[in-house]
């Protein structure tokens, strides 16, 4: 069964460093998403992406964040200058399309630890 994959499973970085979190969505899916879950808190929507551009973004997704689909398979989230409060689980999701109901399939997450 096809699934969303994410690498790495755990990333440790120093404050101020740039990190790139990688996701491989399900191959025939068209919409891609990033969510964040700070430890012990709820999952929060960051951004959705379709047709090589951002479709929707939350207020959390400020200028330090960017997303990209550099090739036909990867979908990345870049955090330019990490802060301590960026420590969280980051989940990637994909869906076949955004119009009408389409289930969002989640990846296993990347745990980001900023020291």
């Amino acid at each position, binding site marked *: 069964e096809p699934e969303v994959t994410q690498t790495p499973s755990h990333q440790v970085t120093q404050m101020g460093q740039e990190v790139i979190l990688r996701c491989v969505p399900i191959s025939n899916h068209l*919409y891609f*998403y990033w*969510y964040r879950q700070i430890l012990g*808190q*709820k*999952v*929060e*929507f*960051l*951004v*959705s*992406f*379709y047709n090589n551009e951002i*479709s*929707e973004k*939350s207020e959390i997704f400020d200028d330090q964040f960017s997303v990209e689909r550099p090739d036909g398979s990867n979908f990345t989230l870049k955090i330019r200058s990490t802060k301590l409060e960026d420590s969280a*689980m980051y*989940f990637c*999701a994909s*869906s076949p399309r*955004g*119009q*009408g*109901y389409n*289930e*969002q399939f*989640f*990846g*296993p*997450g990347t745990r980001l630890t900023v020291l």
Partner: protein
Amino acid sequence: AQTVTQSQPEMSVQEAETVTLSCTYDTSENNYYLFWYKQPPSRQMILVIRQEAYKQQNATENRFSVNFQKAAKSFSLKISDSQLGDTAMYFCAFMKHPGGGADGLTFGKGTHLIIQP
């Protein structure tokens, strides 16, 4: 903006018992979807069940069923014959009916469900 509230941070029941997890939400939308996601210790988010707001009939998936009360903005999850594998965080989530953009899900804070042997 939408909000989702789960008032039970943690619940514990014996195996084979029935348990109900509560969720309320607030929205000005008329058409939307509601979901329950399960997050086991592996942290993977797994869709348990969904409900379309325009459908009056409550959704069911095997041992999982919902009680959807649109006027009260309430969406509870009932798990029958609970099993040890049901131990997980359960998140209630809302998605407004897509109007052209790929809207994200709005999640509640979750309920940690523990099934005791």
